[in-house]
């Protein structure tokens, strides 16, 4: 008796007018957590963690680089997941979520590439090498761009949602193929000249700093995506009554404060 009731109460939030206030309540908490964890992680990374024996101070870029790379890959999976849910269950909110995730994923992808280049110059002597991981990260960035460009180019939101969902799923099927083909291509060409795998023994504080930063990246993503989803919902549902009521209430609150 209890279980179906609870599941119904969770499904309640699939409706945009229920999700909108919930997201508004939750987002500031995630943002605050992101802020605190970022400061804690950076403090751990820059002041507590010891200097690396072989790489010196340069290695400290991993406190931003590794969480960004993790997030960029994970967000694409979540995007594909929401796209599949949207196509199967026909829920508008799922498409909103997948489109709200895309810009953040692309941003993390770019940050990972950029910090990687800054780390590569002093360590490998080159900003860019055609290493398998770098190349597949670059192709992932192009997949994000394709998804964003397609969903923005189609004016009818129904068609944009579904077309974007299909390309996200096609991309998700191809990501492992791309990754392994690029890996094989690279090893065929130049052998294992550059390996990104770190020395196995990592100081505990280094690992702690990296994990704290990774959780901070999670919190940041959740907060930003909730906020972005909120404004997308307002834009899409602007003709409905509940949006009018919400906007009026918010205007009154602002007027009361002034």
């Amino acid at each position, binding site marked *: 008796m209890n279980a179906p009731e609870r599941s119904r109460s969770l499904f309640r939030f699939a409706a945009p007018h229920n999700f909108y206030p919930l997201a508004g309540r939750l987002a500031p908490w995630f943002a605050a957590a992101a802020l605190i964890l970022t400061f804690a992680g950076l403090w751990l990374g820059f002041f507590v963690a010891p200097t690396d024996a072989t790489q010196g101070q340069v290695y400290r870029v991993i406190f931003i680089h590794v969480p960004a790379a993790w997030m960029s890959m994970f967000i694409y999976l979540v995007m594909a997941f929401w796209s599949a849910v949207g196509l199967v269950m026909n829920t508008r909110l799922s498409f909103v979520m997948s489109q709200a995730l895309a810009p953040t994923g692309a941003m993390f992808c770019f940050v990972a590439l950029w910090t990687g280049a800054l780390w590569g110059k002093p360590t490998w002597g080159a900003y860019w090498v055609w290493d398998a991981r770098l190349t597949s990260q670059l*192709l992932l960035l*192009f*997949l994000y*761009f*394709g998804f964003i*460009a*397609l969903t923005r*180019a*189609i004016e009818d939101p*129904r*068609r944009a949602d*579904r*077309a974007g969902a*299909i*390309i996200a*799923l*096609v*991309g998700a*099927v*191809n990501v492992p*193929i*791309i990754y392994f*083909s*690029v890996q*094989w*291509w690279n090893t*065929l060409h130049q052998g294992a000249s550059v390996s990104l795998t770190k020395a196995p023994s990592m100081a505990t504080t280094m690992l702690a700093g990296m994990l704290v930063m990774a959780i901070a990246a999670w919190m940041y993503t959740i907060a930003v995506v909730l906020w972005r989803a909120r404004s997308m919902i307002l834009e899409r549902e602007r003709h409905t009554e509940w949006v009018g009521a919400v906007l009026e209430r918010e205007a009154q609150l602002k007027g009361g404060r002034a």
Partner: protein
Amino acid sequence: MLSTFLAVLRRDLLLAWRGRADVLVTLAFFVIVVCLFPFGVGAEPNQLRAIAPGVLWVAALLACLLSLHRLFAQDYADGTLEQLLLSSEPAALWVTAKVLAFWLSTGLPVVAVAPGLALLLDLEQGALPVLVLSLALGTPILGLLGAVGAALTLGLRGGGMLLALLVLPLFVPVLIFGAGAVEAEMSGSGAAAHLLLLGGGLAGALALAPWACAAALRITTD
């Protein structure tokens, strides 16, 4: 079911034959792109021989990309596509027929011309059969993957550039194994593994892409 497949195939091939100029333009584009490379990188034979597989494959890939918009555009404009979608025949079936006709009219000519161009770049003659085989296995994959992108961007402003952005990242594995097969043959390590992977890719794309393409066409014409 087979009769539907053959009817769509025959119709598309007939249309391609009546509009031969389009096919010839694609072919001319392929030839010209390949001929541009010696001007860009210099005519040193050793260098040309080294980059020949990659150049031929990239040119074939671009020729395929530039002709992809023809796949559904005309049928979309004159309403044939909607009639096909309304019919009781499974959409994946006639989509496969259309992609096959597309490949026969644009991919096959490229495959046929490639050995001649390879001689222009001084590619070893022993590697020519592998080049032809890799293109014959790889270009249908490009057509199948591209068909999904073409269906999604149908009727959009700036659809051509968008189509390139969507499908080029997906083409990368095909390019790697296609050009890699020829290079492996030239270096003496044998192209069997690359060609088998291309064949596997073709089987996978043939099984999955028509469904995705049919779903994309339904969304577009909704």
